[in-house]
């Protein structure tokens, strides 16, 4: 086998892994869009906020300490504890649930019946609010996130592929963990949606708000639940991306990576987010590997959107999205 083919296989596998990470971000968008028709522009910032909160809780940071110190002249920064990751994650999920309740109570409850574009604009406002609120709460320094996930080259894959091809493939342990977690997350979400009372209620709301209301389903409860689920997915994405780069503002920009995934996979399909993520991940990595050197490189962001655009032209609802037919 030629070197190019072997290297191409390594790039392909890494593209799949990158795609899983993109899909993790896209999942949060899908959940909220499916249940409420809201394109949540704040999903990336929610991943940042969740990861900041996790680090803050684990390290025992005092929230709003800079503000408190500036007003009262105190010098408090830490509670003095260091919590294990599992407790940190549980508390953070509780915070994200509280956030979901606030979003519903103070924003979307007042916007019921408004045009989708108004709801979208509200999420833009929410994103900017949450950016500033997160900075004020936890500070804007880059925070190291360590929840015990392995990182670095997987030696087993390296040695095995070296035995086969005379060249060891690089696969990051963190990406493997992300793949397993994404698979578990999708399976759990599908089971939840199909076999639990709340999950069925969520699907009913997604299908028809009015009909769901008429059979006694509480829209408020479902939307809080969906935003909580999206907050949890954001936390998982924040952990994966934050472990790679530290928790910092740029985490909020990972939403840009999810957009082509959504365009390709469809805004309403959980499996679509996964398949879309994989196609985008592999597509952009292979394009960079094969064509990048000929055009000066840095093609990945560009190619992801071009690929999504091509799919849009031929299948506007995405691969797995629901075809919307409006009769006049």
């Amino acid at each position: 086998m030629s070197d190019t083919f072997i290297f191409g296989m390594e790039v392909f596998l890494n593209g799949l892994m990158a795609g899983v990470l993109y899909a993790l971000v896209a999942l949060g968008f899908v959940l909220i869009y499916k249940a409420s028709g809201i394109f949540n522009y704040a999903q990336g910032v929610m991943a940042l906020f969740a990861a900041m909160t996790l680090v803050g809780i684990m390290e025992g940071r005092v929230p709003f300490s800079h503000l408190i110190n500036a007003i009262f002249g105190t010098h408090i920064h830490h509670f003095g504890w260091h919590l294990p990751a599992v407790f940190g994650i549980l508390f953070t999920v509780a915070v994200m649930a509280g956030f979901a309740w606030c979003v519903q109570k103070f924003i979307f409850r007042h916007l019921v019946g408004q045009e989708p574009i108004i709801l979208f604009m509200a999420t833009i406002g929410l994103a900017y609010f949450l950016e500033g609120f997160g900075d004020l709460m936890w500070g804007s320094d880059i925070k190291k996130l360590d929840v015990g996930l392995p990182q670095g080259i997987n030696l087993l894959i390296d040695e095995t592929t070296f035995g086969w091809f005379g060249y060891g493939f690089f696969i990051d342990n963190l990406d493997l963990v992300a793949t397993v977690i994404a698979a578990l997350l999708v399976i759990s979400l599908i089971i939840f949606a199909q076999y639990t009372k709340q999950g069925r209620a969520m699907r009913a709301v997604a299908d028809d708000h009015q009909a769901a209301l008429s059979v006694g389903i509480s829209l408020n409860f479902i939307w809080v639940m969906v935003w909580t689920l999206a907050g949890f997915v954001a936390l998982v994405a924040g952990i994966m991306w934050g472990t790679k780069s530290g928790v910092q503002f740029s985490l909020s920009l990972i939403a840009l990576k999810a957009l082509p995934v959504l365009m390709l996979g469809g805004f309403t399909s959980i499996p679509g987010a996964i398949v879309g993520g994989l196609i985008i991940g592999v597509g952009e990595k292979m394009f960079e590997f094969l064509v990048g050197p000929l055009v000066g490189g840095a093609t990945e962001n560009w190619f992801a959107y071009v690929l999504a655009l091509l799919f849009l032209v031929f299948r506007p609802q995405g691969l797995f999205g629901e075809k919307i037919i409006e009769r006049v």
Partner: protein
Amino acid sequence: MKKLATLAVGAVMAASPVLADLVIPSLSYRTGPYAAGGIPFADGYEDYFTLLNERDGGIGGVPVRVIECETGYNTEKGVECYESTKGEGALVYQPLSTGITYQLIPKTTADDIPMHTMGYGRTSAANGDVFSHTFNYPGNYWNGASGAINYLLAENGGDLSGKKIALVYHNSAYGKEPIRTLEELSSKHGYELSLLPVDHPGQEQKSQWLQIRRDRPDFVLMWGWGVMNQVAIQEAANIRFPMENFIGIWWSGAEHDVLPAGDKSNGYKALAFHNVGRDFPVFDDINKYVVDAGKAAGAGDQVGNVLYNRGLYAAMLAAEAIKTAQGIHGVADITPGMMRDGMEALSITEEKMASLGMPNFGPSFDVSCENHGGEGLVGVAQWDAGSKTWSLISDFAATDGEVIGALVEADSSAYAAENNIASNCS
């Protein structure tokens, strides 16, 4: 009656002429994707002027007033900050952004206000004959590129022929700055240069580091900023690239760039045009007069960090230029035009830095009408993950003046021709 008297005194005080002060705008970014780098610089910059006010009563007896304006590292906001503060009598601007610098070069020249772009901005502004109001001492990007190659030459017995060097760079005007210099030096020293651009913001770099793993370059240079730095260092650690062969520009060499990778970042190197750490007498005064007195610009938790030191150093250079201007013109309350004269006549010596409590904090250099870039001396710092400290591991050494001089001349001449700029020095 008493009330009336109080009101009268208040009115008189309000109507009194405002005391003269030296206005220094600080175009900072404490929010947004680059806040982690902007905060320590802004803190160091303001804290030094606070120290001068508290300890010395200002500069030449005139207090310094720092006006902070948040740019968010956004060029449009940076220009707005300039327009909204220049009327206050601003003496010098430090935009802390190459994008803002490019916008302000014609504006500051027209308004007769000097601008200092230390280690960033338009590199060919070192030619003071063309760029009358822009200064980029003590070093620029091309000095950085040459400094890295000189360091590698020294480490490899003066011979890089046949070696492979990869440049991982932010795919922007900033990131592309060193390419021309590195290509020229490649012809001169015989190394093979490969270019690996990373798209903004740089959160995903798997393709670039897989290529590095395949190509096995001997050395990797990095021109990164923001999240790109942390991800690159983590990816280098993941593919087990030897950290001692990985050198970043000075904007890729702060504590927050290496800390997320933990122990794996041990040995990573970064270029430097000023010293690191807090083992300098000036920090005793910073603590006494600024931090402990509750007058620090930020939370006081950045003191001694690389980028805090950079802000402190920039403020020191501005303060010394003010002193020089006061000496030249014989007035304490100087104008921006006088400040420009002071910057053009600035001389930083080891004796001067020692007297300021900053011995060997930066290289010695002189500025002149023709040379706004200083001598362009560059050092190398290395990260020790165990003690979580940077250490300067080389002296501030000369860079390739022949190659850089020719590039500066070519670029600045083209700018002068495009903009019909007459010689500033003849």
